[in-house]
């Protein structure tokens, strides 16, 4: 976590532990902290404070947008085939439509246009993909949705995009925006959904109505305060981080391509966020590769894991049309604000070694 976030949350885990919904001075102190955090989050996301709904993370925010829209308005949900499972599963749950992507993971706008109509009540297109880093043409998506599905709530999962993209500007056209604190140096278990004024969603979680009846549950004060601190720092440093991490990522991927034959960059850099270095390596199996990388001090991932911890084949690579033989050697190396040049050096040493060993 970012030091700012840890420092910000500590008092609320210790002395300032009150419930912000209470009626006494200690409660008012906690309430003020949540209100101030809400202002920071609103500014970072380009919305009004009253449009911020604090959630338990990105998954709840995504579920809330998709299920909340369909339950409120009926109709059909639409999403791309490469969404995070937090969007994909709710859309499938309500019998929605999935839209194809091209070989770089960008939504096929013609296919999107073809499924949009007056029946569509929510369209969810992520800002940047969590596995391969692809940035979606969100402005073009928004224009299409407004033109062809005028009733639709336009949602974007900006969980992966927030550290790298000017989310406030890019999502100004969206009705709902999801973020999750742990993706930008905040704690796990807290996130937010922007719900613009005029957009109505049925609440997912009923109870005390703490978030203006849009979401119930006692506020996670420490988490909310820490998220705001991490958000402020992320936005302030974003341009510099993108430049620095982008250069590290380029050196990493260029180095891997030079050192490892038959290693392919999954998505061209021009189409993705700065912290993503996704490659496919022919002739190796991801599970075996990850084990050797871990032994060498490089912690990487592949796609997503199921509850048992087993790696599941990537639905993102499948949707992009990557052949199974190639996606079997997928490697997702992520960089962030805390990545160092030494980290890149280590990966450039360990990855080629591991691949050589597995190809023996």
């Amino acid at each position: 976590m970012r030091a700012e976030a840890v420092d910000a949350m500590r008092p609320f885990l210790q002395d300032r532990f009150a419930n912000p919904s209470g009626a006494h001075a200690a409660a008012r102190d906690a309430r003020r902290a949540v209100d101030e955090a809400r202002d920071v989050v609103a500014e970072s996301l380009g919305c009004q404070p009253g449009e911020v709904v604090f959630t338990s993370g990105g998954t709840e925010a995504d579920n809330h947008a998709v299920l909340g829209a369909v339950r409120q308005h009926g109709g059909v949900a639409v999403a791309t085939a490469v969404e995070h499972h937090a969007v994909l599963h709710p859309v499938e749950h309500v019998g929605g439509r999935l839209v194809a992507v091209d070989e770089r993971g960008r939504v096929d706008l013609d296919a999107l246009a073809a499924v949009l109509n007056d029946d569509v009540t929510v369209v969810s297109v992520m800002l940047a993909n969590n596995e391969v880093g692809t940035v979606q043409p969100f402005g073009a998506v928004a224009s299409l949705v407004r033109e062809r599905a005028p009733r639709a709530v336009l949602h974007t999962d900006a969980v992966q995009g927030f550290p790298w993209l000017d989310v406030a500007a890019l999502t100004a056209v969206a009705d709902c925006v999801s973020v999750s604190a742990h993706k930008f140096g905040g704690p796990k278990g807290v996130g937010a959904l922007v719900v613009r004024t005029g957009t109505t969603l049925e609440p997912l979680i009923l109870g005390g109505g703490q978030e203006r009846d849009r979401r119930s549950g006692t506020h996670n004060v420490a988490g909310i305060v820490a998220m705001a601190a991490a958000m402020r720092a992320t936005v302030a440093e974003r341009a510099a981080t993108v430049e620095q991490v982008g250069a590290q990522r380029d050196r990493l991927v260029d180095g891997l391509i030079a050192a490892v034959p038959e290693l392919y960059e999954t998505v061209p850099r021009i189409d993705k966020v700065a912290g993503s270095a996704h490659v496919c390596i022919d002739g190796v199996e991801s599970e075996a590769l990850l084990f050797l990388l871990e032994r060498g001090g490089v912690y990487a991932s592949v796609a997503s894991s199921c509850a048992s911890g087993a790696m599941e084949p990537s639905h993102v690579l499948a949707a992009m049309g990557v052949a199974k033989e190639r996606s079997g050697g997928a490697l997702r190396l992520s960089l962030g604000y805390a990545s160092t040049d030494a980290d890149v050096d280590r990966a450039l040493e360990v990855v080629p070694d591991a691949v050589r060993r597995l190809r023996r």
Partner: protein
Amino acid sequence: MNAVLVAMSGGVDSSVAAAMLLDEGHEVVGVTMRLWGGESDTGCCSVADVDDARRVAQQLGIDHLVFNFGDDFRAHVVDPYVAAHVIGRTPNPCIECNRHVKFDRLLRRAELLGFDAVATGHHARIVHGRVARGADRAKDQSYVVHMLGRDDLARVRFPVGTLTKDEVRRRASALGLRTATKPDSQDVCFITTGGGRAEFLGRRVPFTPATVVDTDGAVVGGVEALELVTVGQRRGVTDGGGTRRYVTALDRQRATVTVGPLDALLTERVVVDGLRWIDGPVDEEVLVQTSAHGQPQLAVVDGDVVVWRTPQRRVAPGQAVVCYDRSDTFVVAGGTAA
């Protein structure tokens, strides 16, 4: 000291196997194989079983990995299991899983990752490079690992094979392992006890109704699914009453099941597919076992034919035929009933 990868199913045997290897001073890493994504209630792949394996590994202070071998399991175990039933055979999926997944796929993966050996919780021993019966004769699993040759065995460990099941549970209790009193797994891991084999196969293949005839060809009944009938079975094919009748043959082409008295089920020989001798053919009599907990019987093996000393019940095609030496200790050969 060796680096050993222990296949941990979440059961008590593999838990204790990991503990024993650790005690012996080896570098131990646990792995649970994710084999089956479908419904399962007894199996080795449920999230609860993976949790148990992981918690035991944490308690022992060893790393725990999960490998997803679902594609291999489907291709080498589940699909052939279904296909075998369609042609009237009775396969043993645990043996195919050992042959193709645990002691092939996993073994190769382990080798690639720098491990010297793979260990499992099977109740069998490895003595002088041969598979031998486990110390607990009632729990012995040498039958299901009979296919391992000397090359494989050099890289395989069965730590609990020297213990009785009671001793395994006592050790687990002494170590405070959460799996100490966990019941033994039963039956086929990818088939639920609720639905059973009928439901599993019924979802995957069309069933063939068949006529039940006696040994003279007279029609005595019918069954809804030829695919669910096994040579040697007694229940479910006749109305009961009178003398006990057993399934003696299946004819898929003519969609008939032949039943007869026990005498008609007896045979003097079994033809074996893919019979493989561990250390070359043995001319004298051997003890031959044809089911997981069957009583071994004396026979000589002539080419690919097992000739019983005294007639035995017909072996359902697809079952493993495993030969042991006269002391009933060592596996000397194995194959599949034709």
